Structures are given as structure tokens and as C-alpha cells.
């Protein structure tokens, strides 16, 4: 059973993982790639445990290159002393 239903706009784009991510209760991240979303995959898995979430999104937003996909919040790491 899916741990949770999460809207794509609540997921964060992670450059390093090249995936949309959402916190997993184990401490790791649920992950799904743009390629997976393009083929209609809606399950984001955690690489560290058995849990997974269902991603809620519009397939059309991820089809084709001309259309701009949803832009979720992006982390901007800066060093501030």
C-alpha cells in the first residue's frame, strides 16, 4: 500500500539525483525521474526501504520538450557565514 499521495508540486527537484524527491520516513528520499513520469509511472520509491508513494501529476506536463514542466521549489544552497 502506498505510504502517501503526494502532488508533484510538493516534490523537490534534486539536481544530483536527477529526480523529483519527497522525504521518506526512514530518513532517505522517495525518488522519481522525469523519464519515469513521461511514461506514466506514478510510484516514487525510496532506495533505502520498502515504502513508496503515489505521485499526483498531469502526464501532459511531462510530454514533449516544448512544454515546460511544473517547476517545484528548488533549493538554492549558498554559504552564509
Amino acid at each position: 500500500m502506498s505510504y502517501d499521495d503526494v502532488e508533484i508540486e510538493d516534490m523537490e527537484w534534486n539536481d544530483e539525483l536527477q529526480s523529483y524527491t519527497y522525504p521518506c520516513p526512514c530518513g532517505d528520499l522517495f525518488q522519481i525521474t522525469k523519464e519515469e513520469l513521461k511514461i506514466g509511472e506514478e510510484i516514487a520509491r525510496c532506495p533505502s526501504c520498502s515504502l513508496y508513494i503515489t505521485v499526483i501529476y498531469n502526464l501532459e506536463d511531462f510530454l514533449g520538450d516544448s512544454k515546460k514542466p511544473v517547476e517545484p521549489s528548488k533549493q538554492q544552497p549558498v554559504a552564509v557565514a
Partner: protein
Amino acid sequence: MIDEKNKVMEETERIKSREEEEEEEIWSWGAGTEGQLGTGKLQDEHKPQLIHSLSSFGPISHISCGGAHVIALTPGGRVLTWGRGTSGQLGHGEMVNCLHPKSVEYLEGIFITHASAGWNHSGFVSDTGYVFTSGDGSFGQLGHEDYISRCSPAQVLHFKARHVEQIACGMRHSLVLLKGDTEDLIYGFGSGKRGQLGISDDKLKSVSTPQVTLGFENVKIRSVTANGDHSAAISMNGHLYIWGRSFHGAPDVYTPRRVTADLLFSQVALGWNHALVLTGDGEVYMLGRYNYNVPTGAQKANGMNHISEDEGVLQRVLDFNSTKVVQIGAGAEHSAVVTADDGSVMTWGWGEHGQLGLGDTNDQTGPRAVSLCNEPSRKPCVGRVYCGSGFTFVIRTYTVKSSS
């Protein structure tokens, strides 16, 4: 100047520990692949591990566990952090993990009395009422009126002229408690999508400027708590207030709501889908339910009794060997308590990463005793338990008999 203050702090700690003649043990178990267990290893531990990496810093008075990082405070106000640091949550001036407890240099010379670890951010409160935050700021959860992450603690200037008492860090939001002469105020900032800030009746996304949480006029607040998308407060007169994501499939709660029960509460601990509350009489109640791999339909755990008039959502947790509970903790999907008579620790909930400390990865529907046997003959006088998302820490203090 700073060095001098540090010396005084260290001296105070040394004298205190000598006078009380106490010995302290720190144990950890559960998810450990980010170094959060302080074992120096990047692996899960299913059995309690005795941690030696903190012993050089003297006694530890308080621990807060986040998504995969830990903050520890010494009685002298020093701050140590370790675990995941990739968002800057460790406050070490860089965005890397740290396997061993390390002093937060930026806060040296500042006497930190309270700290909270969120999913990927941290909050620190000083004895002078200043509040500092570091880590992931992409939802405004650092309170600096921007959405920038910080790898060194920065003072939240919004509260510059005020006396902050506590900070509570959740997944993507923070709560701050201000104690005033006439009234207490709670402020919220960060993600408010599930109502966890309690600042508006309407749905809102994120705020990076702290705003007053509604509904606490003339209420004196004892403590604020945050985890996941949940928020909670306990008033001085023992009332429990909850807001944010709902616990039982009901609509989210956008302004703090008092839990109606004929009980007086002293502590609350929040998970991602459940809350644990402790009454003044040492009884434990649970709101919501664990959400890991639960079968569809109603799930009723063993050892629980419906008691509340709130449509049965507040359930009493039994099975603590008939003893009272003195302290509670909640991870994302597990719970832990310390019992009164012998300071033993009991855990239940999700166990896939060994976060229950029972030597396996099984889930438990009711409380089970954790074996923390270093020297079984010695009885701890004080035990404290602290839960991170998928891991658990325990501080045990033993009184050493004076040789005179």
C-alpha cells in the same frame, strides 16, 4: 573574550559533573546511513549501540533528532551536531555529512539552552533569548525572510528585540515560542500548505517572515512541538492544541484546535501520521496511527483502548508493565517511552531500519522493552529518549555512590 567564556562553561560542567557524581550513557539505534547514530559507521543498527564519541565533550543535557541529523547540548550551553549535513543543517559552515559529533564553532561563546532538529534544518535558542537557524531554507523555514539555505547558524532578526524561549522544527516549517510578561506568543514560518503554521484560516503555501499563530490569546504555553506537517502546543494548565495535517483522514486543521478530553497533558511528541501524548498521571495516549504498510480499512493495534469523545481518535496505549511513563518520543513512524520505576525504554511501530532497537527489523503493534544492558546490576536514575525520523537516541544517567 569568547575563549574566556568557554573556559568558564567548561569549568562549570566539570564542577557540576563532579558534585553530582553521575555517570552518563548514550545509546543509539535505527537508520544510520547518513552517520546520524554517532557510531562512526554508515550503517543501520538493529540493537542499541553504546556511543563513545560524545564522552570527550562531557555530559549531554539534551538531544534533538531530525530527519537524519542530531543536535546535542551540554549543560554548559555548547552545541554538537552530526549526521546528514547536505543542506547545511549541521551548522558547520559546509554542506557535508559528519560521522562524529562536532562542536558548532559559530555558536561557541553563545550559551545555547534549547535546540530542535527538523527534517533538514535546525534551530538554536540562547539563554539571552536569541534564536538561530541553519539548513534547508527552501520553504522559508529558517525565518530569514528569504528562501535561501544556510550552512552556518544565522540569527533570526525578526525576534532580535524579543525573548525567544523555544523553537520547534518540522519537515518544512518552524514554530517559535516567545514568553512575555502578560502573554505568550507562538510564531510560525516555512511551509503552511497543510495548516501547520496556524496563521491563517485560508490555505497558503510558504511564508519566510515569522507570523503569529492564531488562537492563543491569554493562554500560557509550556511547550511547542513540530514534526512532519504537524504542529502542537501544551499550555501551562495542561491543555493540548494541535494544528496542521490531520491525523485521521479528516480535513487539515488551519488554526490550533484544543483536543477535548477530560485529561491534563504534560508532554506531546509528533510523528508524521501520529501523535503521542503523556498525561500528568503518567498515562500515554495516541492520536492517529502509523502509516507504514498498514492494511486498508480500520486498523486497531493491540494494547489500545478507545477513550476519547473525539470520535475515538485519542486512544490509550497500555502494556507498559503497569508502570507510569515519565517521558515520550516519536519518530516518523515509531514511538518510544521511558517508564517511571526503573527508567526502562519501550518502543513500538515501524521497525524496518531497526529503529525499535529490538534486535530485528520487525514492526510492533504494541510497546516492547528495549534491552540496554551494559551493567544489569546498575539501575539508571534518569532516562531520556529522543526519536529521529528512522532512529532513536537514549541518555541514561546513573548515580555513582560516593566513596566516602
